[in-house]
């Protein structure tokens, strides 16, 4: 039974851990430094939220054997199909730019020039698929996911104060419900579910060849991934709340540098974690887009194909990575603007992707006996509705920064 789970596990853990990408780690570090341990309970609540959304993609992928992009084209027609595909590509591209920003910043701490980082990362990502086997790729990415948990041993090195740490598990707002607190709640919710995650996991389930009978273990895989993502987020918050309380930091790399002056080992761990988070994000997000285009255009689009067998799939992925890498290397490129713009663009796609997911999971013709139950629908509607409202407010807050103080 356990070996069967090991064979099926992968897509859920990968998507959830990759959710803690460079942007996510930055959000947690700034949150920890600003609001100390008070956001821990919010991160714990967000675990089940991510699970409920992603579990639906497992059922849809395993039963229909189609990725989310193809499913949208088929069910809702070409208008919504093209909208989703193009918006996904733009959002993914800009998000990968932010992953490169995180990775170059992390490695610059060790004196690695950004050009070298970009070249090495692109070569590394493309070399993972040389074997033309999904399993090989998945094993490498799972090892990178394990490295993402580097924040956990780092927590034991910082010796967090026990009482404030435990009080962080109790739902409360010790800093009040000010505009800034609300803005950071929205930012943390925004990092929990991103459009690429829905497309990625559904395509991943299809590419791995998971079937209806595998749904039970795939759910477990997704739940385990949700636990890992929460553990990593909480660990990150604890480190920054302990070592840089009330520290005015803007990003994780600056935080890692400042932590290095307090505790060198932890600072190095934070920098490695940030690089790994960006790498995982770039791997998964570039795949989400390539899979989507392959599905819609009918190109061979499996990681079980080598480059010769699926040139369109791999060339598109390579172009996305090179394009994003070049933007980061351009001197004076508006990287901060891009980072802010990603949130706004993502919000144009997130409600559509989640709504389509929910509607498809209510179609007996599509998912048969695996359609949502009444309880699943109530939970999904509450969660999806809340995510849409909070993510939209966050985007509006990004466009009009004075709105939340």
């Amino acid at each position, binding site marked *: 039974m356990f070996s069967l789970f090991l064979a099926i596990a992968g897509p859920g853990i990968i998507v959830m851990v990759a959710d803690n990408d460079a942007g996510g780690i930055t959000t947690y570090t700034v949150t920890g430094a600003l609001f100390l341990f008070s956001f821990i309970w919010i991160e714990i609540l967000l675990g089940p939220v991510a699970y409920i959304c992603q579990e639906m993609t497992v059922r849809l992928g395993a039963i229909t054997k189609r990725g989310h992009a193809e499913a949208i*084209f*088929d*069910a*809702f*027609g*070409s208008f*919504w*199909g093209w909208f989703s595909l193009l918006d996904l590509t733009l959002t993914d591209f800009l998000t990968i730019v932010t992953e490169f920003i995180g990775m170059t910043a992390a490695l610059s701490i060790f004196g690695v020039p950004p050009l070298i980082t970009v070249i090495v990362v692109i070569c590394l990502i493309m070399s993972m698929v040389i074997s033309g086997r999904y399993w090989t790729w998945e094993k490498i990415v799972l090892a990178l996911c394990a490295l993402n948990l580097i924040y956990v041993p780092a927590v034991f090195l910082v010796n967090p104060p026990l009482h404030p740490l435990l009080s962080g598990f109790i739902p409360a707002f010790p800093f009040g419900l000010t505009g800034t607190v609300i803005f950071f709640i929205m930012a943390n919710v925004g990092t929990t579910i991103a459009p690429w995650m829905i497309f990625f996991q559904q395509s991943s389930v299809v590419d791995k060849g998971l079937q209806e009978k595998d749904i039970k273990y795939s759910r477990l895989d997704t739940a385990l991934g949700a636990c890992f993502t929460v553990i990593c987020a909480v660990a990150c918050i604890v480190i920054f709340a302990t070592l840089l309380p009330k520290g005015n930091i803007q990003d994780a790399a600056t935080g890692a540098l400042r932590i290095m002056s307090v505790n060198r080992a932890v600072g190095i761990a934070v920098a490695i974690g940030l690089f790994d988070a960006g790498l995982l994000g770039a791997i998964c997000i570039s795949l989400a887009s390539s899979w989507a285009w392959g599905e*819609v*255009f009918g190109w061979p689009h499996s990681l079980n194909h080598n480059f010769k067998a699926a040139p369109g799939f791999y060339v598109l992925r390579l172009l996305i990575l090179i394009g994003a890498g070049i933007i980061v290397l351009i001197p004076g490129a508006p990287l901060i603007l891009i980072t802010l713009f990603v949130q*706004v663009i993502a*919000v*144009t796609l997130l*409600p*559509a992707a989640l*709504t389509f997911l929910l*509607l*498809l999971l*209510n*179609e007996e*013709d*599509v998912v048969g006996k695996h359609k949502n139950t009444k309880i699943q629908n109530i939970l999904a509607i509450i969660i999806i509705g809340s995510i849409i409202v909070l993510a*939209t407010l966050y*985007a*509006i807050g990004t*466009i*009009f920064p004075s709105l939340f103080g």
Partner: protein
Amino acid sequence: MANPIRNLINRIREINEKYSKPRIKMSRPVKFALLALRIYLIFLIILLLYRFIITIH
């Protein structure tokens, strides 16, 4: 050079034809959801345009 572009345009035409009719049953909740999504997108576009205009001025 013209051939790959022509092939791409033809492929897009084929995709549009293949998916010209939504396969989902247009029940009341589905119609409502799609209408809400359209309104939501229009709202966001107006907001972005407004921000763009006030930034320019």
